């Protein structure tokens, strides 16, 4: 299967990243998991080596790479037995907002730092009372002279402790239609009135500095609005296709990695002198899982190709996000069953994988939201598939 036709340049890039991961990331993972954060230095090094924001235009210090470079970064990072170092969130989800909707001044100010790793970004949408129902957010931004005054709080913000720059959504309380009241804003770390909460304790992704963000009379220059007034909801919707595609590529690559690890384990591990792989039940389980990931790969790669052709594949991307995230959970769970007693031990890398991947069915729009989008597309009498 060769849907994406990776060039020699792509392949060399992947190889370079693999070498980098081997020496600069894998040895640090245990420490990051314990410290519940990836140090800023690691971000900078990643940037200096050209592995952040590959899509950013050369004008702003990037390499102007196509989405295949993004996919390579996501896939290789998916094989590092950690999810905390969320370069994909920064490179392929948050920074694209700035490059797509930012003013020339905003782009010049922020993008070079994003590429070099000096600026770590986060995106702040969810609120304590507004999760799936994003339009019900209550954080407000009110203009006061040449400033916007922001009040409210955001929750489950990845890179929340590390972030130097936040792309956040807030409402103009004077506008009633919630879809037209939301605009996006850029808030720099250190702005008075902007506070970061403590790292949230969670099932997995222990090296990820997920936190709450608080805005109390936080004043930002009016020039910090990202894009047009009231266009926030539209911009969010436009970017969700790529966000969910990123999640799909990630989930799929993790499933492949977990399955490969388990296959290798089944060849090596022996119980009473018999290889685990010699159990017919194990063989069939592996066969079923291999089929699942191969089918997903064909679908996802096709989507990547269509996304690169700038096609509207929102519905198919919702399908992919839902299917890959559920699939990686099923695969990981079954792999633990095969390994057995030893998989309960956190020393087994799959124990962490199992804890980490559970969130994939929840973030970037829960799978229930995905199914709602898919169902809506089927609400016609003919030619719905």
């Amino acid at each position, binding site marked *: 299967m060769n849907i994406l036709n990776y060039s020699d340049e792509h392949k060399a890039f992947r190889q370079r990243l693999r070498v980098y991961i081997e020496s600069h990331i894998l040895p640090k993972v245990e420490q990051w998991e314990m410290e519940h954060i990836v140090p800023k230095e690691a971000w900078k090094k990643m940037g200096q080596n050209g592995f952040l924001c590959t899509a950013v235009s050369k004008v702003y210090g990037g390499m102007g790479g196509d989405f295949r470079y993004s996919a390579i970064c996501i896939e290789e990072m998916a094989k590092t037995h950690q999810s905390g170092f969320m370069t994909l969130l920064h490179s392929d989800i948050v920074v694209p907002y700035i490059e797509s909707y930012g003013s020339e001044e905003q782009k010049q100010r922020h993008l070079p730092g994003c590429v070099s790793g000096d600026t770590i970004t986060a995106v702040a949408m969810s609120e304590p009372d507004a999760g799936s129902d994003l339009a019900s957010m209550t954080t407000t931004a009110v203009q006061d002279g040449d400033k916007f005054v922001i009040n409210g709080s955001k929750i489950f913000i990845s890179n929340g402790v590390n972030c130097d720059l936040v792309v956040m959504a807030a409402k103009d309380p004077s506008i009633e239609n919630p879809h037209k009241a939301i605009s996006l804003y850029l808030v720099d770390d250190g702005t008075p009135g902007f506070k970061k909460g403590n790292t949230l*304790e969670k099932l997995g992704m222990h090296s990820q500095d997920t936190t709450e963000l608080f805005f109390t009379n936080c004043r930002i220059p009016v020039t910090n609005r990202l894009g047009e007034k009231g266009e926030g909801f539209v911009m969010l919707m436009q970017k969700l296709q790529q966000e969910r595609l990123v999640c799909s590529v990630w989930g799929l690559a993790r499933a492949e990695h977990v399955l490969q690890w388990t296959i290798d384990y089944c060849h090596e*591990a022996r119980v009473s002198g018999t290889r685990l792989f010699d159990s017919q039940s194990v063989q069939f389980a592996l066969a079923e899982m291999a089929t699942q990931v191969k089918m997903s790969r064909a679908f996802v790669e096709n989507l990547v190709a269509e996304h690169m052709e700038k096609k509207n594949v929102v519905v198919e991307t919702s399908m992919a996000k839902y299917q890959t995230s559920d699939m990686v959970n099923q695969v990981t769970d079954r792999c633990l*069953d095969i390994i*057995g007693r030893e998989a*309960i031990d956190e*020393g087994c890398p799959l124990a962490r994988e199992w804890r980490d991947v559970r969130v994939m069915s929840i973030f970037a729009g829960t799978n*229930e939201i995905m199914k709602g989008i898919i169902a809506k597309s089927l609400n016609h009498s003919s030619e719905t598939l």
Partner: protein
Amino acid sequence: MEFQLTKSQKEIQKAAREFAKGEFDKDLVLEMEKQQSFPEDIRIKAADLGFIGMHWPEAYEGGGLGMFENVLAAEAFCSKDSSLGIALMLSGSASEYLLHYGTDDLKSEFLPKVANGDMVSGSAFFEPGEGYDLTGTSTTAVRDGGRWVIDGWKTGVLNGGAAGFYCVLCKTDPKSASPDGFSIILVEAERDGITVENNQDKLGMRMVATTDIRFQDVRVPESHLVGKPGKGVKQALALNDQNLILVAAMATGTARGAYARALDYVKQREQFGKKIGQFQITRHKLAEMALSIEQAALMTYSAAWQLDRRKKNQAMAAMAKLSACRTALDVSSEAIQLLGGYGYMTEYEVERCYRDAKALMLFEDNPIGLKDAVATGVMGRIK
């Protein structure tokens, strides 16, 4: 058949629920679970109230009740708090071998101490690289002048480091390659030559210690043999049904706890202008969860009921464990999903149910081994 709990069973269930409600403190558990430690005072209180060794004869300070009552307590405890409930119910685990196979002297010496909360007991059966297979045991026990001399390396030792004594599966007939060359020997924790190491960092069941133990020239009296020489593996397997049923009860409770938390949440959480519990899809998720819990509970009760009536049904015990652990996993996973981002957060507890459910699934035996057991039970071996 009388398809309801007896008055006394209802009282036990109520007492267990009240005990858990009164004693299991969420903040304490969140802290201790992280540290992999256990509140000793709760175990002692539970023992005082007779929740440890409920099914042991009164002669050994047990409750003189059956496995069924034990199941009710396990379910009630784990429903309130899976991590604490599991640890509490497993504190007497190795004592079961003693109860069933030990001499009167050994039973009188040790069982009352466990039932009274003075000590917990640990089982040292598994060995590194042998999975769930007991016949791969290479720890040896050799007779030497009225003593057993034990040497070897055990892993996954339940209550390792915390126990007052261990039941250790040893190879006592080094020449025999058959399953008849192993014996269970009771070893007190304070014997010379015992090294507890590598307290396992587990994904779930974190309030029960599981460790490695090295035995180097450990000497115990010959009278510490539990059961018949050479029959250790057979004895361990014979008690397996009981272990699996207890796990099934803990898993059923874990599922109930996750269900209750999810139900609370969907009743109060509003999105899109209504309670999320008003969406049909949410209601059906709760329906599936309830359905699965009822199935698991009935199977677990049935297996325990049969066990109490000495009806040997290996398949039933394995089915109950498989069904209840699947239920615990599915229900707690769905609870996480219903709570969304909050579900993934430690504070909301359903993630802990999910971790405990997975650990229970892989504890004692995995689905492959369980299905082997069910198949053998229901279809025998085809020749």
